[in-house]
């Protein structure tokens, strides 16, 4: 495509807007009073246009999108203002008319893919339902279309995975299922709420391309909610900045990026981590923090801690293998296995951060879960703080788990829906009898504040939080026990840059103070670059490259690592029209037939501690 930014702008200006939101105000009933969480939002989206909503976590982005779709719980929420779709006021439609609009004219990608997928239906069925309920096509046709879509969203082995269930998918894959579902009906307007947070940059790029392609072909308008300024720069024509329920700034992306004048906008942009900003430095560094009200720098960048070089590792993993059997047929014979983790070895010392990066679905979460035996590993040895994890009896396993805490990738699913956030955070503390309930409460309140929530929120239930807020609750929970190791699975992916910076700094501070070790699983290469001492790159269940961060980032050796580095989006609106043409790659799948013997891998040492798999 050769359209320049200016060309697109002119076409948009003349077209009738697809969506026009005027004075949208949404309130929730909390404890008998109505609390406004979105105030007086007005914006419009034209065909082919992409409007991004960025903003602080919990500022009302998701609520705005749910208000447009009229999907908020009827009894505990209230929507005012007007939402017009091609001239029709959505808020005035009957339920049945609204139903016809949903999924047909507007479709939506939800933020938390785990809870948003129906756990008991195969994903194929869930996607084809979106087609079948609006279009008069046969089941077989729908299935064909779904398979195509799955291919397009880069789900490997789509044919076989059609009948699998959400819990068998990795976080990123679930998100891609959601995307496929939303795109299935070729809507006029796509609302995408953090559609790529759980995706690695290569796949993220491919998905973004896919969306652009559909925009070009079908004239689809997109309302894009994200924290990733790089993505914003790359896809959006116009940008709305939200802050605590208000749209504080609206304008073309270019304007916002270069001429934003609200202090929050400036704070947001200056905090955006840029890949390469750490070049030449060996240790992690904290983010600079800018005060939102004044725009002044309140905390300068600080050098992160050195891992104590002589210490024994607190976590060491040797030849870890985890496979999920695939059974089929009448006798449910084992016909193959997902080789989710294959022969993985690494170790983490106290005070050290090892980042695990890699393609979505390559086995990162499974590695994390295998370490704490939440998923039973197939073979290998795991040692945590002197415990031989795979040999532990239940009681010791429990004790061991105190020293190693997890932040789950899907924070909503990992919170008990019937337990208030405060209790959820206090619980491990009370459980291990580390102090009185009052102490637990104080500590939890303190942690709430430190992850950027207010202590008052402790009495709320998980569904009353935004995605990012829930993620912070999960982080607070993992810190409650003062563990020695934290496995942070996409712990900051749903946070806006300012909070992300704050939380990362918190993690670094804790590391400095308590010699914490982190296994940091993330897709956000910029954050990885900042926080880690060492980096391991996974591909199809195996570690293909591992080494000191500096070595891996500045001197990537493995082709996949190289591809990853190059795919990172750069927060510069000038690069909007860039297309990567990554779609041509073959998608590889970790599913192997029964009896498959994985090849013996050789590693080559590039520099000290920098190992690369030899193909």
């Amino acid at each position, binding site marked *: 495509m050769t359209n320049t930014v200016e060309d697109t702008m002119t076409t948009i200006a003349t077209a009738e807007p697809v969506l026009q939101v005027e004075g949208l105000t949404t309130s929730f009933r909390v404890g008998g009073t109505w609390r406004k969480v979105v105030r007086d939002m007005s914006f419009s989206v034209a065909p082919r246009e992409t409007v991004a909503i960025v903003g602080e976590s919990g500022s009302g982005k998701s609520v705005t999108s*749910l208000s447009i*779709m009229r*999907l908020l*719980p009827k009894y505990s929420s209230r929507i005012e203002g007007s939402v017009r779709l091609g001239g029709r006021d959505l808020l005035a439609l009957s*339920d*049945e008319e609204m*139903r*016809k*609009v*949903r*999924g*047909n004219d507007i*479709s*939506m990608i*939800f933020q*938390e893919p785990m*809870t*948003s*997928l*129906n*756990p*008991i*239906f195969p994903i194929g069925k869930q996607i084809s*339902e*979106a087609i079948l*309920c*609006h279009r008069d096509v046969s089941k077989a046709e729908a299935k064909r279309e779904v398979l195509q879509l799955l291919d397009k969203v880069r789900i490997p082995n789509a044919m076989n995975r059609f009948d699998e*269930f959400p*819990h068998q998918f990795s976080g990123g894959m679930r998100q891609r299922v*959601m995307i496929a*579902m939303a795109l299935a*009906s070729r809507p006029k307007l796509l609302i995408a709420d953090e559609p790529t947070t759980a995706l690695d940059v290569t796949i993220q790029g491919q998905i973004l391309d896919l969306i652009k392609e559909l925009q070009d072909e079908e004239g689809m308008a997109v309302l894009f909610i994200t924290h990733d300024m790089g993505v914003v720069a790359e896809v959006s024509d116009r940008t709305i900045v939200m802050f605590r329920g208000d749209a504080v700034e609206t304008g073309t992306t270019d304007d916002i990026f270069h001429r934003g004048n609200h202090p929050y906008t400036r704070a947001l942009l200056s905090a955006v981590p840029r890949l390469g900003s750490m070049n030449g430095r060996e240790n992690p560094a904290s983010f600079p923090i800018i005060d939102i009200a004044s725009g002044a720098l309140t905390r300068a960048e600080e050098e992160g801690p050195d891992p104590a070089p002589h210490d024994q590792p607190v976590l060491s993993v040797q030849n870890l293998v985890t496979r999920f059997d695939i*059974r089929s047929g*009448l*006798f*449910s014979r084992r016909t193959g296995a997902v080789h989710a983790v294959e022969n993985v070895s690494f170790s983490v010392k106290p005070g050290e951060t090892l980042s695990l990066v890699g393609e979505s679905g390559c086995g990162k979460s499974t590695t994390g879960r295998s370490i704490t035996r939440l998923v039973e590993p197939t073979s290998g040895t795991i040692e945590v703080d002197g415990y031989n994890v795979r040999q532990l009896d239940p009681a010791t396993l429990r004790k061991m788990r105190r020293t190693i805490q997890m932040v789950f990738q899907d924070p*909503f699913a990992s919170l008990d829906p019937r337990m208030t956030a405060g209790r959820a955070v206090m619980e491990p503390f009370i459980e291990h009898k580390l102090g009185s309930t009052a102490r637990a409460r104080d500590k939890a309140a303190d942690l709430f504040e430190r992850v950027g929530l207010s202590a008052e929120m402790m009495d709320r239930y998980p*569904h009353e939080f935004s995605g990012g807020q829930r993620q912070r609750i999960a982080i607070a929970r993992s810190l409650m026990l003062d563990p020695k190791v934290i496995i942070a699975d996409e712990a900051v992916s749903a946070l806006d840059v300012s909070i992300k910076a704050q939380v990362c700094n918190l993690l670094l501070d804790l590391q400095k103070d308590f010699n914490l070790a982190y296994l940091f699983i993330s897709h956000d290469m910029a954050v990885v670059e900042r926080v880690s001492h060492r980096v391991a790159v996974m591909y199809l269940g195996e570690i293909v490259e591992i080494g000191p961060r500096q070595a891996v980032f500045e001197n990537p050796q493995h082709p996949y690592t190289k591809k990853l580095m190059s795919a990172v989006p750069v927060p510069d609106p000038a690069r909007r029209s860039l297309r990567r043409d990554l779609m041509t790659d073959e998608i590889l799948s970790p599913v192997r037939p029964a009896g498959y013997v994985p090849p013996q891998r050789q590693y080559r040492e590039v520099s000290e501690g920098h190992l690369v798999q030899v193909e």
Partner: protein
Amino acid sequence: MFTYTLRRLLFAIPTLLFISFIIFALLDLAPSDPLGDLPLTIPPEVREQIRSAMGLDQPFFIRYLLWLQQFFINEPLNVLQDMTGIAIGDPHRLRVLSWATRSPVVDLIVQRMPQTLWVVGLSYLFGVLLAIPIGVVSAYKQYSIFDQIGTFVSMIGYSVPTFFTGVLLIVIFSAKLNWFPSVYDTNLVVHDWSSFVAQVRQMFLPVLVLTLYNTSQISRFVRASMLDNLHMDYVRTARAKGVKEKTVLLVHVLRNSLIPVVTVIALGVPTIFSGAIITEQIFRVNGLGQLLIVAIQGADLPLVQTLTFIFAFLIVLFNLIADVLYGILDPRIRYD
């Protein structure tokens, strides 16, 4: 799943043997006496003779083994023989004989089957068919008039015992209005329209009483379970897809809510075969329930043992079916 089912089926055999032994021991221990309802004018010596003719004077274990042999070997052979017409071995093998009627227990059960299925089975079917929509709607429109009335009626239906509702209905509809007969005619054979009408008429009251009871029970579980799932995020997703509200409820929410419902239903199906004792008694349906209660009251051990064993078999079977269904309903539940 298949291996699991197979394993469970194999494991069911010792389970059932064990259960049958416990039941036998229990029945033997019970103070009830098969001669309890004989006139007091029959002298003790004669009673002693009757007792020994029944084999009651043999040791407990021998009697149990004898029952096992009769039930598991002789009866199946007889059935086979009846079906194929080929004589296998001695055609005069000893069958399980009821003490009270001195006739083969299996014949009695076969005789009682039709009315039990007609009345109890049908009302269970109606119960399930009614309960699901009622439960779904009550949950969907929680605290609406429909829900309130449904709750009220089902609680009354459940809490007022059938021995009362039955009599009430008979007084109103049989005695006062003369619309329906109060006595069920088990000899009625449906062969034409008028006999069909007669059958429907005589079934109406007992089926009504039982359906009310079954519906009440099941619909409460459907409602509660639906309420648990109605507010889940995936429901929101389904709506966002533009799925029809009916589909959202009946496919997405209901399927997710089915586990307790399947449990209740699976627990209920075997009870069809144990009959509805009181209702059968009131309307004189004389199905399996009445057979069982008369047998228990008459301490007719072979009959009670056989009936309860069949019942136990059904329980084990339907609980197995429920377990398999769990796995099908919720793929996260796996047994292997």
